[in-house]
């Protein structure tokens, strides 16, 4: 496979053909923020916070778009920063008051991104009052908070592609889309084997380990 030379934020870089813009930027030490992407998983490009400017009508997701010769990529324009902030605000607007992940392991990626892009107030309506998304405490091991889910698809890919347990899907459509187990049964009644891979890849408080106090043992 041949190599491709391109420019990212004014710096030239040569990478193998087929490399994504996100991976090419990594080799330069440019960290394009992501929520849905995890290097262990096939990219899906749905959160759009890694959108970059390649001079086209729209901004492609760096995690999906492959490099092309002489491509000129900008990852840090004022416009990109503004979209990144709006996308982060849109997701934050519907989050529960407290992130279970931030509370426990302290590594909620949405909150980290909010700090990075300096979200101060959220001008978008909180949809959680009109269309609450609910919780699922049926599994003794894993706590599901649909309200904290940003539909990044990481758990779906981890369950199906890494573990081959084939339990999780996206269900529904549009704003009411959420994750589901088997034929949309509570997680505790599904074929889930509680391997914990989904908890490990979830970027928010949507899938976390049940705290001892909420299990039968507590």
């Amino acid at each position, binding site marked *: 496979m041949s190599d491709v030379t391109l420019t990212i934020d004014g710096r030239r870089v040569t990478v193998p053909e087929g490399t994504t813009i996100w991976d090419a930027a990594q080799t330069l030490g440019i960290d394009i923020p992501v929520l849905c992407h995890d290097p262990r998983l096939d990219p899906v*490009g*749905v*959160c*759009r*916070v890694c*959108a970059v400017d390649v001079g086209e009508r*729209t*901004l*492609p*997701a760096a995690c*999906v*778009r492959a490099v092309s010769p002489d491509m000129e990529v900008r990852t840090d324009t004022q*416009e990109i920063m*503004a*979209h990144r902030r*709006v*996308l982060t605000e*849109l*997701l934050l*607007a*519907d989050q529960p008051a407290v992130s279970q992940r931030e509370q426990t392991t302290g590594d909620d990626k949405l909150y980290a991104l909010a700090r990075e892009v300096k979200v101060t107030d959220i*001008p*978008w*309506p909180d*949809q959680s009052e*009109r269309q609450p998304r609910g919780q699922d405490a049926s599994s003794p091991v894993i706590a599901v908070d649909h309200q904290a889910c*940003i*539909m990044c698809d990481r758990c779906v890919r981890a369950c*199906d592609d890494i573990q081959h347990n*084939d*339990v*999780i*899907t*996206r*269900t*529904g*459509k*549009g*704003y*009411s*889309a959420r994750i*589901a*187990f*088997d*034929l*949309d049964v509570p997680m505790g009644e599904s*074929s889930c084997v509680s391997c914990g891979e989904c908890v490990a890849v979830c970027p928010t408080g949507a899938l976390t380990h049940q705290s001892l106090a909420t299990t039968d043992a507590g």
Partner: protein
Amino acid sequence: MRLLSELESIQASTGALTDEALKAVAERRGIPLYQLQGLRSFYPVFRETAGAAHRIQICRDGPCRLHGQAKAKALAEALDDDSRIDVEYVSCLGQCDCAPAVAIDDKHYGTLPQASDIDVLLDRPNALERPAQPLAAPLPTDPYPTQTQHYTTSREWLARPAEQVIEALEASGLQGLGGAAFPTARKWSFTRAAEGGPRSVICNADESEPGTFKDRLLLEQAPHLIIEGMLMGAAVINADTGIIYLRHEYETARQHIETALEQARAQGVLGDNARGPGLAFDIELFISPGGYILGEETALLEALEDRRGEPRHKPPFPVTAGLHGGPTLINNVETLAAVTTILARGAQWWRDQGVGDYAGLKYFSVSGDVEHPQVVCLPWGSPVTQAIAACGGMRADRDLLAFSPGGASTPFLPASAADTPMAFETLREAGSGLGTGALFVVGTGRNLADVVITQARFFRNESCGKCVPCRSGSTKGVAMAYDAVNKGGRDISQPLSELHDTLMRTSICGLGQVALLPIVDALKTFPDDPSLKALQKDNA
């Protein structure tokens, strides 16, 4: 059998896709349950439970809302306690000439009836009223006066080199009539040049944007023109597989296409030697399990590969990597029919049909406040006023207030722009677009804010939910607009414009990119409209 087709057939025969039915499918096919849940919950045709014995679906979009909000509410209320009937509001049914349109039992379409007529209609749903469609076979673009002459054009052109077909299309100036305006000759030549397989020709017959129903007429009255256009496409790109992707609601079209396909097979137009000795081509009719997003060409491909119809990232484009990864020629119904007309009559004849330098004839779906909403066939470049006049003019009690020339994604223009020639470039310069040629006419006295919010609401309702800007942004944008209208208190023009910018630039597909455009653009084009003032007023 395709998985989606199997699910559709279970849905049609039992009225639902129950858990038990899906478990049986999963076991038989050796596929996981989650995959079936993903499909069942994505496509609107599928249901978990069968519901009442009858179902009445009422269109809630554009032209139907304009004509029938009060009537629809009255019918829904009257039937509220009727245990025989489920009443639901649905997205555009593609019957905008019947506005307000309804569907009875997923099969019969027409104008919303009075509650007192329901008992008769449940017995005889064919009695559902429909306005006459003045255009009938043979259509103005049909080169064949009689059925015996069908397919004589392809017989002649199949003997010529493929390059000549592309040259004729190039000379005609034909552009994609599904709204994207991509030059047809270039698309055909790119797909022909693309290497690998499998190679397919797909007719996109999934028009679903509110106000759009012109393809329905072509599919019902001239399916042979579409089949012949597909055959020529197959010959040019060397495809042996053809698929007509038809929207679920086009029941009459479905029957007419099936008949036309059988006739074409009987004549050998389709089959083992369709493109020449030993060069097979046949066409499968696939009925979409529903949803506007499936008209997006890569979402359509996902459905044809038995997945949730969520648009793919582009590139790669379908011309190089489409159905099952092979080169795929996807054209709109009207485009494929026009190919046959152009090859039969010649590129020069086609060019001569337009006004001045505009080439060809165009079918326009005209809906809204005109006397007789219908599909009209006019020379390219005809002014908007002519399309309105062809439908009997404005309704008696109204003058022209605004019009959207090409479907919900094309912004409304004021009455002062009604002399604009209907063509891609002229309407773009006027600040809108020709889109699919779906002219939605709004008369004086109408609430323009309600009209444009309804357009944005359609996109919100039809968002697949895959990417954040569209899923979340369309929901919040529409919620902000309703809040401003119902509660007041905040000038939303600036934040809505900022939100639209993010949707336009970062959404994966065209749906998200235009979702909030109807509102954001109307606020700029109609700064003095009293109904739209509510969105701009800071009356806290």
